[in-house]
Protein backbone atom coordinates (compact mmCIF):
# COMPACT_ATOMS: atom_id res chain seq x y z
CA UNK A 1 0.00 0.00 0.00
CA UNK A 2 2.94 2.29 0.73
CA UNK A 3 4.16 1.77 -2.81
CA UNK A 4 0.72 2.62 -4.09
CA UNK A 5 0.68 5.88 -2.16
CA UNK A 6 3.97 6.85 -3.71
CA UNK A 7 2.58 6.12 -7.17
CA UNK A 8 -0.52 8.11 -6.32
CA UNK A 9 1.61 11.08 -5.36
CA UNK A 10 3.56 10.77 -8.59
CA UNK A 11 0.33 10.70 -10.57
CA UNK A 12 -0.78 13.93 -9.00
CA UNK A 13 2.59 15.58 -9.43
CA UNK A 14 3.12 14.46 -13.01
CA UNK A 15 0.49 16.78 -14.56
CA UNK A 16 1.70 19.69 -12.45
CA UNK A 17 5.25 19.06 -13.62
CA UNK A 18 4.24 19.28 -17.24
CA UNK A 19 1.92 22.25 -16.94
CA UNK A 20 4.59 24.26 -15.19
CA UNK A 21 7.05 23.83 -18.06
CA UNK A 22 4.61 24.85 -20.81
CA UNK A 23 5.60 26.88 -23.84
CA UNK A 24 4.46 30.38 -24.64
CA UNK A 25 3.91 30.21 -28.40
CA UNK A 26 0.40 29.76 -29.79
CA UNK A 27 1.19 26.70 -31.92
CA UNK A 28 -2.42 25.72 -32.64
CA UNK A 29 -3.17 29.23 -33.86
CA UNK A 30 0.04 29.13 -35.90
CA UNK A 31 -1.14 25.94 -37.56
CA UNK A 32 -4.70 27.12 -38.20
CA UNK A 33 -3.81 30.56 -39.50
CA UNK A 34 -1.49 31.29 -42.38
CA UNK A 35 1.25 33.84 -42.69
CA UNK A 36 2.04 33.23 -46.33
CA UNK A 37 -0.35 34.68 -48.90
CA UNK A 38 0.01 33.72 -52.54
CA UNK A 39 -0.91 36.28 -55.16
CA UNK A 40 -1.27 35.36 -58.82
CA UNK A 41 -1.01 37.83 -61.67
CA UNK A 42 -1.31 37.45 -65.42
CA UNK A 43 0.56 40.65 -66.15
CA UNK A 44 4.09 41.68 -67.08
CA UNK A 45 4.03 44.54 -64.57
CA UNK A 46 4.34 43.83 -60.86
CA UNK A 47 1.98 46.65 -59.89
CA UNK A 48 -1.21 48.24 -61.18
CA UNK A 49 0.51 50.33 -63.85
CA UNK A 50 -0.78 47.79 -66.39
CA UNK A 51 -2.27 49.02 -69.65
CA UNK A 52 -5.71 47.89 -70.76
CA UNK A 53 -6.23 44.74 -72.80
CA UNK A 54 -5.72 45.46 -76.45
CA UNK A 55 -7.06 42.44 -78.24
CA UNK A 56 -9.89 41.76 -80.59
CA UNK A 57 -11.03 38.18 -80.45
CA UNK A 58 -11.29 36.37 -77.14
CA UNK A 59 -13.08 37.86 -74.16
CA UNK A 60 -12.67 35.16 -71.50
CA UNK A 61 -9.64 33.34 -70.12
CA UNK A 62 -10.32 29.97 -68.51
CA UNK A 63 -7.87 29.06 -65.77
CA UNK A 64 -7.78 25.86 -63.73
CA UNK A 65 -4.84 25.33 -61.38
CA UNK A 66 -4.77 22.21 -59.24
CA UNK A 67 -2.08 23.33 -56.81
CA UNK A 68 1.11 25.31 -56.36
CA UNK A 69 4.23 23.87 -54.79
CA UNK A 70 7.52 25.40 -53.77
CA UNK A 71 10.37 23.06 -54.69
CA UNK A 72 8.02 20.15 -54.14
CA UNK A 73 6.63 21.38 -50.81
CA UNK A 74 2.85 21.28 -51.11
CA UNK A 75 2.33 24.62 -49.41
CA UNK A 76 -0.62 25.65 -51.59
CA UNK A 77 -2.48 22.42 -52.17
CA UNK A 78 -5.71 24.11 -53.16
CA UNK A 79 -7.47 24.25 -56.48
CA UNK A 80 -8.31 27.48 -58.24
CA UNK A 81 -10.73 27.48 -61.12
CA UNK A 82 -12.27 30.55 -62.68
CA UNK A 83 -13.27 32.15 -65.95
CA UNK A 84 -11.58 35.52 -66.03
CA UNK A 85 -12.81 38.32 -68.28
CA UNK A 86 -10.22 39.91 -70.53
CA UNK A 87 -10.63 43.35 -69.03
CA UNK A 88 -9.50 45.24 -65.94
CA UNK A 89 -12.29 44.03 -63.64
CA UNK A 90 -10.31 41.09 -62.23
CA UNK A 91 -7.20 41.24 -60.06
CA UNK A 92 -5.52 38.74 -62.34
CA UNK A 93 -5.31 41.29 -65.15
CA UNK A 94 -5.54 44.68 -63.42
CA UNK A 95 -2.30 44.35 -61.49
CA UNK A 96 -3.83 43.86 -58.05
CA UNK A 97 -3.45 40.10 -58.23
CA UNK A 98 -5.84 37.39 -57.18
CA UNK A 99 -5.51 35.51 -53.92
CA UNK A 100 -4.59 31.86 -54.07
CA UNK A 101 -5.23 29.73 -50.97
CA UNK A 102 -2.11 28.54 -49.24
CA UNK A 103 -0.56 27.22 -46.08
CA UNK A 104 2.83 28.28 -44.83
CA UNK A 105 6.34 27.66 -46.09
CA UNK A 106 9.14 26.03 -44.19
CA UNK A 107 11.24 28.57 -42.35
CA UNK A 108 14.72 29.33 -43.74
CA UNK A 109 14.25 27.00 -46.71
CA UNK A 110 15.90 28.18 -49.94
CA UNK A 111 13.26 27.89 -52.62
CA UNK A 112 14.36 27.98 -56.27
CA UNK A 113 11.07 27.58 -58.08
CA UNK A 114 7.34 27.72 -57.62
CA UNK A 115 5.58 24.93 -59.47
CA UNK A 116 2.19 25.87 -60.83
CA UNK A 117 0.20 22.77 -61.72
CA UNK A 118 -2.02 24.25 -64.40
CA UNK A 119 -4.71 21.78 -65.43
CA UNK A 120 -6.44 23.85 -68.04
CA UNK A 121 -5.97 27.12 -69.86
CA UNK A 122 -8.17 28.30 -72.65
CA UNK A 123 -9.63 31.29 -74.42
CA UNK A 124 -13.06 31.60 -75.93
CA UNK A 125 -13.78 32.64 -79.52
CA UNK A 126 -12.20 29.65 -81.22
CA UNK A 127 -13.35 28.81 -84.70
CA UNK A 128 -15.43 27.00 -85.75
CA UNK A 129 -17.57 28.69 -83.16
CA UNK A 130 -19.09 25.38 -82.03
CA UNK A 131 -15.72 24.40 -80.51
CA UNK A 132 -16.11 23.71 -76.79
CA UNK A 133 -14.14 22.11 -74.01
CA UNK A 134 -15.02 20.75 -70.60
CA UNK A 135 -14.25 23.28 -67.89
CA UNK A 136 -15.47 23.56 -64.31
CA UNK A 137 -18.13 20.86 -64.73
CA UNK A 138 -19.62 22.16 -67.95
CA UNK A 139 -18.87 22.63 -71.60
CA UNK A 140 -17.67 26.13 -72.42
CA UNK A 141 -17.07 27.69 -75.82
CA UNK A 142 -13.37 27.90 -76.56
CA UNK A 143 -10.26 25.79 -76.79
CA UNK A 144 -8.09 24.29 -74.03
CA UNK A 145 -4.54 24.71 -75.30
CA UNK A 146 -2.79 23.29 -72.24
CA UNK A 147 -1.96 19.92 -73.74
CA UNK A 148 -0.22 21.63 -76.62
CA UNK A 149 2.22 23.50 -74.44
CA UNK A 150 4.97 20.98 -74.78
CA UNK A 151 8.72 21.23 -74.74
CA UNK A 152 10.34 22.78 -77.77
CA UNK A 153 13.91 23.77 -78.51
CA UNK A 154 14.39 23.43 -82.23
CA UNK A 155 11.69 20.90 -82.91
CA UNK A 156 9.09 18.97 -80.96
CA UNK A 157 10.66 17.08 -78.11
CA UNK A 158 10.39 13.32 -78.25
CA UNK A 159 9.32 13.13 -74.62
CA UNK A 160 6.71 15.82 -75.11
CA UNK A 161 7.24 17.27 -71.65
CA UNK A 162 4.29 19.46 -70.80
CA UNK A 163 5.60 22.86 -69.77
CA UNK A 164 2.67 23.93 -67.65
CA UNK A 165 2.12 20.85 -65.47
CA UNK A 166 3.99 22.09 -63.66
CA UNK A 167 4.97 25.50 -64.91
CA UNK A 168 8.23 26.41 -63.20
CA UNK A 169 8.16 30.02 -62.08
CA UNK A 170 11.73 30.85 -61.00
CA UNK A 171 12.07 32.61 -57.65
CA UNK A 172 13.99 35.89 -57.90
CA UNK A 173 16.34 36.15 -54.96
CA UNK A 174 15.38 33.76 -52.22
CA UNK A 175 12.30 33.57 -50.05
CA UNK A 176 13.83 34.48 -46.71
CA UNK A 177 10.70 33.42 -44.87
CA UNK A 178 11.25 33.84 -41.14
CA UNK A 179 7.91 32.61 -39.83
CA UNK A 180 7.00 36.05 -38.49
CA UNK A 181 4.58 38.68 -39.74
CA UNK A 182 2.66 38.34 -42.96
CA UNK A 183 4.37 37.32 -46.18
CA UNK A 184 3.35 37.78 -49.78
CA UNK A 185 4.51 35.33 -52.41
CA UNK A 186 3.73 36.69 -55.84
CA UNK A 187 3.77 34.57 -58.98
CA UNK A 188 3.35 36.18 -62.39
CA UNK A 189 2.79 34.65 -65.80
CA UNK A 190 2.63 37.09 -68.68
CA UNK A 191 -0.73 36.48 -70.32
CA UNK A 192 -2.11 39.97 -70.70
CA UNK A 193 -1.45 41.39 -74.16
CA UNK A 194 0.67 38.36 -74.92
CA UNK A 195 -1.62 36.09 -76.91
CA UNK A 196 -1.62 34.76 -80.40
CA UNK A 197 -3.91 32.85 -82.76
CA UNK A 198 -2.89 29.34 -83.71
CA UNK A 199 -4.55 26.67 -85.79
CA UNK A 200 -4.54 22.90 -85.63
CA UNK A 201 -4.23 20.44 -88.50
CA UNK A 202 -7.92 19.58 -88.19
CA UNK A 203 -8.98 23.12 -88.89
CA UNK A 204 -9.57 24.61 -85.45
CA UNK A 205 -8.29 28.14 -84.88
CA UNK A 206 -7.82 29.12 -81.29
CA UNK A 207 -6.22 31.75 -79.11
CA UNK A 208 -3.34 30.83 -76.82
CA UNK A 209 -0.37 32.40 -75.08
CA UNK A 210 2.53 33.43 -77.26
CA UNK A 211 5.69 31.39 -76.84
CA UNK A 212 8.27 33.69 -75.34
CA UNK A 213 11.43 31.94 -76.51
CA UNK A 214 10.61 30.62 -79.95
CA UNK A 215 8.66 32.17 -82.76
CA UNK A 216 6.10 29.44 -83.26
CA UNK A 217 4.43 30.26 -86.54
CA UNK A 218 2.83 27.01 -87.62
CA UNK A 219 2.04 24.24 -85.23
CA UNK A 220 -0.47 22.44 -87.38
CA UNK A 221 1.87 19.68 -88.57
CA UNK A 222 3.42 18.90 -85.20
CA UNK A 223 0.77 19.81 -82.65
CA UNK A 224 2.64 22.16 -80.36
CA UNK A 225 2.42 25.85 -79.70
CA UNK A 226 5.63 26.25 -77.79
CA UNK A 227 4.52 26.88 -74.26
CA UNK A 228 7.54 28.73 -72.96
CA UNK A 229 5.61 31.10 -70.72
CA UNK A 230 7.31 34.16 -69.26
CA UNK A 231 7.05 33.92 -65.49
CA UNK A 232 8.63 34.90 -62.19
CA UNK A 233 8.01 34.57 -58.47
CA UNK A 234 9.28 36.56 -55.54
CA UNK A 235 8.42 37.15 -51.91
CA UNK A 236 8.43 39.96 -49.41
CA UNK A 237 7.29 40.60 -45.89
CA UNK A 238 4.26 42.85 -45.77
CA UNK A 239 4.92 46.26 -44.20
CA UNK A 240 8.65 45.55 -44.29
CA UNK A 241 9.17 47.17 -47.66
CA UNK A 242 9.95 50.50 -49.27
CA UNK A 243 10.00 52.08 -52.71
CA UNK A 244 12.46 53.01 -55.43
CA UNK A 245 11.76 56.14 -57.47
CA UNK A 246 13.42 57.00 -60.76
CA UNK A 247 11.82 60.28 -61.92
CA UNK A 248 13.53 60.10 -65.31
CA UNK A 249 12.12 56.68 -66.19
CA UNK A 250 10.04 56.80 -69.37
CA UNK A 251 9.49 53.18 -70.42
CA UNK A 252 9.66 50.33 -67.99
CA UNK A 253 11.37 50.62 -64.62
CA UNK A 254 12.77 47.32 -63.43
CA UNK A 255 14.47 46.01 -60.29
CA UNK A 256 16.12 42.68 -59.56
CA UNK A 257 17.97 41.36 -56.51
CA UNK A 258 21.62 42.47 -56.73
CA UNK A 259 22.78 38.88 -56.19
CA UNK A 260 21.38 38.10 -59.64
CA UNK A 261 22.72 39.25 -62.97
CA UNK A 262 20.40 41.05 -65.38
CA UNK A 263 21.59 38.68 -68.13
CA UNK A 264 19.56 35.93 -66.40
CA UNK A 265 16.35 37.82 -67.01
CA UNK A 266 15.84 37.03 -70.67
CA UNK A 267 13.46 34.78 -72.55
CA UNK A 268 10.91 33.19 -70.27
CA UNK A 269 12.24 34.76 -67.06
CA UNK A 270 10.97 38.26 -66.37
CA UNK A 271 12.28 40.66 -63.71
CA UNK A 272 10.42 40.47 -60.38
CA UNK A 273 9.78 44.21 -60.15
CA UNK A 274 8.42 45.88 -63.28
CA UNK A 275 6.43 49.09 -63.55
CA UNK A 276 5.37 51.58 -66.20
CA UNK A 277 5.33 54.31 -63.58
CA UNK A 278 8.37 55.97 -62.03
CA UNK A 279 8.07 54.19 -58.70
CA UNK A 280 8.62 50.54 -57.78
CA UNK A 281 6.69 49.36 -54.73
CA UNK A 282 7.13 46.48 -52.26
CA UNK A 283 10.93 46.52 -52.41
CA UNK A 284 12.06 44.42 -49.42
CA UNK A 285 14.08 46.10 -46.71
CA UNK A 286 17.58 44.72 -46.34
CA UNK A 287 17.83 43.21 -49.82
CA UNK A 288 20.22 44.93 -52.19
CA UNK A 289 18.55 45.67 -55.53
CA UNK A 290 19.78 46.62 -58.98
CA UNK A 291 17.64 49.10 -60.91
CA UNK A 292 17.24 49.33 -64.69
CA UNK A 293 15.13 51.09 -67.25
CA UNK A 294 14.19 50.02 -70.74
CA UNK A 295 12.24 51.68 -73.51
CA UNK A 296 11.26 48.56 -75.43
CA UNK A 297 7.65 47.45 -75.56
CA UNK A 298 6.40 44.47 -73.56
CA UNK A 299 6.24 42.29 -76.67
CA UNK A 300 9.78 43.23 -77.68
CA UNK A 301 11.20 42.66 -74.20
CA UNK A 302 9.68 39.18 -74.11
CA UNK A 303 11.27 38.32 -77.43
CA UNK A 304 14.78 39.52 -76.54
CA UNK A 305 17.46 36.91 -76.16
CA UNK A 306 19.85 39.41 -74.57
CA UNK A 307 19.53 41.86 -71.73
CA UNK A 308 21.36 44.66 -73.60
CA UNK A 309 18.25 46.85 -73.68
CA UNK A 310 18.22 47.24 -69.91
CA UNK A 311 20.19 50.35 -68.93
CA UNK A 312 21.32 50.73 -65.30
CA UNK A 313 19.56 53.50 -63.38
CA UNK A 314 22.09 54.54 -60.79
CA UNK A 315 23.76 52.73 -57.93
CA UNK A 316 22.32 49.65 -56.20
CA UNK A 317 19.57 50.27 -53.66
CA UNK A 318 19.63 48.90 -50.13
CA UNK A 319 16.63 49.98 -48.06
CA UNK A 320 17.19 50.00 -44.33
CA UNK A 321 13.84 50.96 -42.79
CA UNK A 322 10.25 50.12 -43.80
CA UNK A 323 8.57 52.89 -45.77
CA UNK A 324 11.85 54.29 -47.04
CA UNK A 325 12.07 55.63 -50.59
CA UNK A 326 15.29 55.57 -52.59
CA UNK A 327 15.68 58.07 -55.43
CA UNK A 328 17.85 57.22 -58.41
Amino acid at each position, binding site marked *: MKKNKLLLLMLIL*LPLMFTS*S*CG*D*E*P*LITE*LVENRVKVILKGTFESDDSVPAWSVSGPSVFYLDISEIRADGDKFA*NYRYVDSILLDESNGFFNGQGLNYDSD*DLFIDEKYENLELYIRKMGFDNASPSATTFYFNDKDVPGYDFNLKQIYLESGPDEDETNLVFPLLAPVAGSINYDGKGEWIVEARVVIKNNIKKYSTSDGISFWAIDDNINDVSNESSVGYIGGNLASIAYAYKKDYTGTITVPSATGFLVAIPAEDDITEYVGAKIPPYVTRSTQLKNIPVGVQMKVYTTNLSQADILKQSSSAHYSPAGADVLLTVPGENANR
Partner: protein
Amino acid sequence: MKPQAGIWFGPSMPLFEMNDNVEPALGGGAFFRLNTPLTLFKVGGEVGYQKHKSQGVNAISLVPVYGNLLFLLPIKFPMNFQFKLGAGGVKVYIKPEEKEQFDPLFMAGLEVSFMAGRMVNFGLRFDYMVIYEKHISGAKYNGYFFNTGLTLYFNL
Protein backbone atom coordinates in the same frame (compact mmCIF):
# COMPACT_ATOMS: atom_id res chain seq x y z
CA MET B 1 -10.56 -4.80 -8.25
CA LYS B 2 -6.90 -4.92 -9.14
CA PRO B 3 -4.44 -2.43 -10.51
CA GLN B 4 -4.55 -2.39 -14.28
CA ALA B 5 -2.19 -1.65 -17.13
CA GLY B 6 -3.22 -1.49 -20.75
CA ILE B 7 -2.83 -0.29 -24.28
CA TRP B 8 -5.21 1.19 -26.80
CA PHE B 9 -5.26 2.26 -30.42
CA GLY B 10 -7.84 3.77 -32.69
CA PRO B 11 -8.86 6.70 -34.86
CA SER B 12 -8.18 10.23 -33.66
CA MET B 13 -10.23 13.07 -35.04
CA PRO B 14 -9.17 16.70 -35.07
CA LEU B 15 -12.17 18.92 -34.40
CA PHE B 16 -13.30 22.40 -35.43
CA GLU B 17 -10.58 24.58 -37.03
CA MET B 18 -8.04 21.78 -36.72
CA ASN B 19 -10.23 19.60 -38.89
CA ASP B 20 -9.77 22.01 -41.81
CA ASN B 21 -6.02 21.81 -41.52
CA VAL B 22 -5.07 18.23 -40.68
CA GLU B 23 -6.62 14.83 -41.25
CA PRO B 24 -7.75 12.07 -38.90
CA ALA B 25 -5.09 9.54 -38.00
CA LEU B 26 -4.47 6.40 -36.01
CA GLY B 27 -3.54 7.14 -32.42
CA GLY B 28 -2.49 4.92 -29.60
CA GLY B 29 -1.22 4.84 -26.08
CA ALA B 30 -0.53 3.05 -22.84
CA PHE B 31 -1.91 3.53 -19.36
CA PHE B 32 -1.93 2.14 -15.84
CA ARG B 33 -4.52 2.46 -13.10
CA LEU B 34 -4.51 2.11 -9.35
CA ASN B 35 -7.34 1.57 -6.91
CA THR B 36 -8.14 4.13 -4.30
CA PRO B 37 -9.72 3.61 -0.89
CA LEU B 38 -12.98 4.60 -2.55
CA THR B 39 -14.11 1.48 -4.40
CA LEU B 40 -15.71 3.25 -7.34
CA PHE B 41 -12.75 5.53 -8.04
CA LYS B 42 -9.40 4.81 -9.63
CA VAL B 43 -6.50 7.01 -10.56
CA GLY B 44 -4.61 6.53 -13.77
CA GLY B 45 -1.70 7.73 -15.80
CA GLU B 46 -1.61 7.84 -19.58
CA VAL B 47 0.84 8.43 -22.36
CA GLY B 48 -0.11 8.48 -26.03
CA TYR B 49 0.96 9.41 -29.50
CA GLN B 50 -0.87 10.67 -32.55
CA LYS B 51 0.37 12.33 -35.72
CA HIS B 52 -2.01 14.13 -38.03
CA LYS B 53 -0.83 14.90 -41.55
CA SER B 54 -2.58 16.78 -44.34
CA GLN B 55 -2.65 16.86 -48.12
CA GLY B 56 -0.28 19.81 -47.95
CA VAL B 57 2.56 20.77 -45.63
CA ASN B 58 0.55 21.05 -42.41
CA ALA B 59 1.06 18.40 -39.76
CA ILE B 60 0.76 18.11 -36.00
CA SER B 61 2.17 15.48 -33.65
CA LEU B 62 0.93 15.07 -30.10
CA VAL B 63 2.36 13.20 -27.13
CA PRO B 64 -0.19 13.58 -24.34
CA VAL B 65 1.04 12.71 -20.85
CA TYR B 66 -1.63 13.07 -18.21
CA GLY B 67 -3.20 11.75 -15.07
CA ASN B 68 -6.87 11.06 -14.63
CA LEU B 69 -9.53 10.13 -12.15
CA LEU B 70 -11.90 7.32 -13.12
CA PHE B 71 -15.38 6.71 -11.80
CA LEU B 72 -17.00 3.31 -12.20
CA LEU B 73 -20.74 3.50 -12.73
CA PRO B 74 -22.24 1.36 -9.91
CA ILE B 75 -24.66 -0.73 -11.92
CA LYS B 76 -24.87 -4.50 -12.12
CA PHE B 77 -24.23 -5.32 -15.73
CA PRO B 78 -21.77 -7.58 -17.61
CA MET B 79 -20.07 -4.45 -18.89
CA ASN B 80 -18.27 -1.78 -16.90
CA PHE B 81 -18.89 1.88 -17.62
CA GLN B 82 -16.19 4.26 -16.47
CA PHE B 83 -16.09 8.01 -16.73
CA LYS B 84 -12.77 9.80 -16.82
CA LEU B 85 -11.55 13.31 -16.13
CA GLY B 86 -7.93 14.20 -16.54
CA ALA B 87 -5.30 16.86 -16.83
CA GLY B 88 -1.67 16.99 -17.73
CA GLY B 89 0.60 18.08 -20.51
CA VAL B 90 0.93 17.45 -24.18
CA LYS B 91 3.99 17.81 -26.33
CA VAL B 92 2.91 19.53 -29.52
CA TYR B 93 5.00 19.58 -32.70
CA ILE B 94 3.75 21.43 -35.77
CA LYS B 95 4.84 21.60 -39.40
CA PRO B 96 5.79 23.53 -41.50
CA GLU B 97 6.81 25.84 -38.64
CA GLU B 98 8.84 22.99 -37.10
CA LYS B 99 8.18 24.22 -33.58
CA GLU B 100 7.45 22.18 -30.48
CA GLN B 101 6.48 22.83 -26.90
CA PHE B 102 4.48 21.53 -23.95
CA ASP B 103 0.93 22.72 -23.52
CA PRO B 104 -1.61 22.09 -20.76
CA LEU B 105 -4.05 19.31 -21.59
CA PHE B 106 -7.52 18.55 -20.25
CA MET B 107 -9.56 15.51 -21.10
CA ALA B 108 -12.88 13.84 -20.45
CA GLY B 109 -13.88 10.40 -21.54
CA LEU B 110 -15.91 7.24 -21.29
CA GLU B 111 -14.80 3.62 -21.30
CA VAL B 112 -16.93 0.54 -21.79
CA SER B 113 -15.22 -2.73 -20.94
CA PHE B 114 -15.94 -6.36 -20.16
CA MET B 115 -14.03 -9.25 -18.67
CA ALA B 116 -12.39 -11.68 -21.03
CA GLY B 117 -10.87 -13.87 -18.35
CA ARG B 118 -9.22 -13.15 -15.01
CA MET B 119 -6.24 -11.45 -16.58
CA VAL B 120 -7.68 -9.56 -19.51
CA ASN B 121 -10.44 -7.05 -20.17
CA PHE B 122 -11.46 -5.66 -23.53
CA GLY B 123 -13.03 -2.34 -24.07
CA LEU B 124 -13.84 0.72 -26.10
CA ARG B 125 -12.81 4.21 -25.11
CA PHE B 126 -13.93 7.66 -26.18
CA ASP B 127 -11.75 10.60 -25.19
CA TYR B 128 -12.25 14.28 -25.75
CA MET B 129 -9.02 16.24 -25.43
CA VAL B 130 -8.45 19.96 -25.16
CA ILE B 131 -5.00 21.38 -25.78
CA TYR B 132 -5.29 24.60 -23.85
CA GLU B 133 -3.41 27.43 -25.55
CA LYS B 134 -5.76 30.38 -25.19
CA HIS B 135 -3.84 31.51 -22.11
CA ILE B 136 -0.91 32.39 -24.41
CA SER B 137 -0.89 35.93 -25.77
CA GLY B 138 -1.76 35.97 -29.46
CA ALA B 139 -3.54 32.62 -29.34
CA LYS B 140 -6.96 32.45 -30.95
CA TYR B 141 -7.61 28.74 -30.83
CA ASN B 142 -7.34 25.73 -28.58
CA GLY B 143 -6.72 22.32 -30.07
CA TYR B 144 -9.63 19.88 -29.81
CA PHE B 145 -9.37 16.17 -30.57
CA PHE B 146 -11.72 13.23 -30.25
CA ASN B 147 -10.07 9.84 -29.87
CA THR B 148 -11.81 6.50 -30.16
CA GLY B 149 -9.94 3.37 -29.29
CA LEU B 150 -9.97 -0.37 -28.82
CA THR B 151 -8.50 -1.12 -25.41
CA LEU B 152 -6.82 -4.11 -23.87
CA TYR B 153 -6.59 -4.16 -20.06
CA PHE B 154 -4.38 -6.41 -18.02
CA ASN B 155 -5.37 -7.01 -14.42
CA LEU B 156 -2.13 -7.13 -12.49
